């Protein structure tokens, strides 16, 4: 592939703050037209990497190129190719929405006779029609993010770098911003940092997971889940009609089910999922890619238990994220919330 298809490229990129390595020898490439999710817990180095790529700070070691231009040697060329939305987009609160976009257009050297048309275009894309007459300090956080996105798009950049564009937005606002990103991502290279794994799955073709300044995973969301080498089963067994008898269905019977299931797949982790039914619903995470469904079925037959449900699925991205970033001590509220939500969802499915 020709070099000019690589839109963002880092080699051994390192940023050291005092004694802390915020970014530790990161190397990656992002090609034309890719929408890449940049994932990691707080303090993992996502924002620092983005600040380097937008020439706001310089790397301590290594190189970074955007559109083939070195961020250190040609910062103006780099910035001219990028639309950047920093984390918690800070806009001039006293300025009107149109006034702010005009200012952004002026700094992007958009000819004065074309500015109106450009502003109209980004207002359309970002859904700002209803707030054009307002000043920025009158806008909700969601609308401010949209104005930030609009200024990033005003010069029609081939590359967009968006640092947590949906942070602090309510679910409706997040969904809207993500749908805008999907829309504009059809024609651009986008690097998107977020904590929300659902957004990544929805909008990104590729994921880079960083932890403690290092890249710990790189690939398509599904590919990463497969590579994690774990398979998740949901097994629902009803032992109440077994030899033990319906009257005897109690905690001990459930424990018997758990022990039996653990015996089927050695080294697996078994968790009881909440359930309103009589069946005992278990989540079994097994290492390796072997299919253990027949063994679960045989166990049910042997024990004369009813097999109410048996589902096999590869581990979710949330689980991969947790596995790769666990133990760093950083708060991961969103990721934790999401995992909890998934468990509830699965429980209700059962």
């Amino acid at each position, binding site marked *: 592939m020709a070099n000019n298809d690589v839109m963002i490229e880092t080699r051994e990129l390192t940023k050291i703050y005092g004694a802390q390595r915020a970014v530790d020898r990161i190397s990656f490439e992002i090609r034309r037209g890719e929408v890449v999710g940049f994932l990691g817990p707080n303090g993992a180095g996502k924002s620092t990497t983005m600040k380097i790529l937008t020439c706001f700070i310089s790397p301590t070691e290594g190189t970074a190129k955007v559109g083939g231009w070195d961020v250190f040697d040609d910062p103006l060329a780099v910035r001219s190719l990028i639309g950047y939305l920093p984390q918690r987009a800070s806009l001039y609160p006293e300025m009107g929405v149109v006034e702010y976009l005009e200012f952004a257009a002026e*700094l992007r050297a958009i000819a004065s006779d074309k500015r109106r048309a450009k502003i109209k275009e980004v207002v359309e894309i970002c859904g700002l029609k209803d707030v054009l007459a307002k000043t920025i300090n009158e806008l909700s956080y969601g609308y401010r993010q949209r104005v930030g996105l609009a200024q990033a798009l005003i010069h029609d950049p081939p590359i967009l770098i968006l640092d947590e564009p949906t942070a602090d937005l309510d679910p409706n606002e997040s969904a809207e911003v993500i749908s805008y990103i999907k829309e504009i991502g059809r024609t651009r290279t986008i690097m998107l940092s977020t904590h929300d794994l659902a957004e990544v799955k929805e909008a990104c073709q590729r994921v880079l997971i960083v932890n403690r300044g290092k890249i710990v995973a790189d690939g398509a969301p599904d590919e990463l889940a497969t590579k994690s080498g774990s398979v998740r089963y949901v097994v629902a067994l009803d032992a109440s009609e077994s030899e033990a008898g319906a009257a005897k269905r109690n905690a001990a019977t459930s424990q018997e089910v758990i022990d039996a299931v653990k015996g089927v797949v050695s080294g697996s982790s078994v968790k009881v999922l909440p359930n309103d039914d009589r069946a005992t619903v278990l989540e079994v995470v097994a290492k390796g890619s072997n299919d253990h469904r027949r063994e679960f079925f045989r166990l049910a037959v042997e024990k004369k238990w009813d097999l109410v449900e048996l589902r096999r699925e590869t581990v979710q991205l949330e689980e991969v994220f947790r596995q790769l970033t666990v133990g760093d001590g950083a708060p991961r509220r969103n990721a934790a919330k999401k995992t909890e939500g998934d468990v509830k969802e699965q429980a209700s499915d059962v």
Partner: protein
Amino acid sequence: MSDQEATAPKPVGPQPRGSIGTPVGNTLAIARREFVSYFSSPLGYIVIGMFLLLVGFLFFIPFAFLTLGKATLQPMFNSISWLLPLISPAIAMRTFAEESRTGTLEMLITQPVRDWEVILGKYLGAMGLLAVCILGTFSYPVIISRVGELDWGPVAGGYLGLLLGGAAYVSFGVMVSSFTKDQITAFFVSFIVGAVFFLMNKALIFFGGAASVIEYLCPDYHFSNIARGVLDARNIIYFCSVIFVCLLATARSLGSRRWS
């Protein structure tokens, strides 16, 4: 598409640059935004109001122009020179400190603009407000010219001195503002340092042999020379040097973020 076309290597090399504004265009855009922003908050109105109120007070209370027995604005210029160390930090304090605190500086600097365009733009915006303040006093020479024969030469010199002196104080304020995220800190540091330099010129007797050096370092000394209507290159060079050094230090301060 033929096979040959399909397999032909794409051109190798960097992407063409996007649009980059001219240095003058970028600087003026930033200056205009900065200047207008003073009037989007009470700050601009408070600064202008306070300045004109104090100048009026200092001008009329001593009736200095009457006691001298001639139409002159010398006392007014001297009064305003006392106000410059106070008013200039108030104008300059927010230029960088506020933008660093709120994060808008990151948005601004990641646009395709050079650091010095940002610095010069903000400086010119602040100077615009100071110029409005100073121009607001122009009614006084008009009034005096009605009651007596006013020599406009020293008046022009006085206004030039005020602009140059103010420009030096504002450049110092901009520099201090770039070192901190707190505009109140920026105000007090630049006010105190400015006041010390101003007052040193009034207390040269305490400096013995170093008096002439101290005198040269004090903006008020150079201002007084120009306000008398004496246009000496040394005074102009002094003010230009202070402005240059302060803005250079601002550029260093802004550039240091990259390596922090």
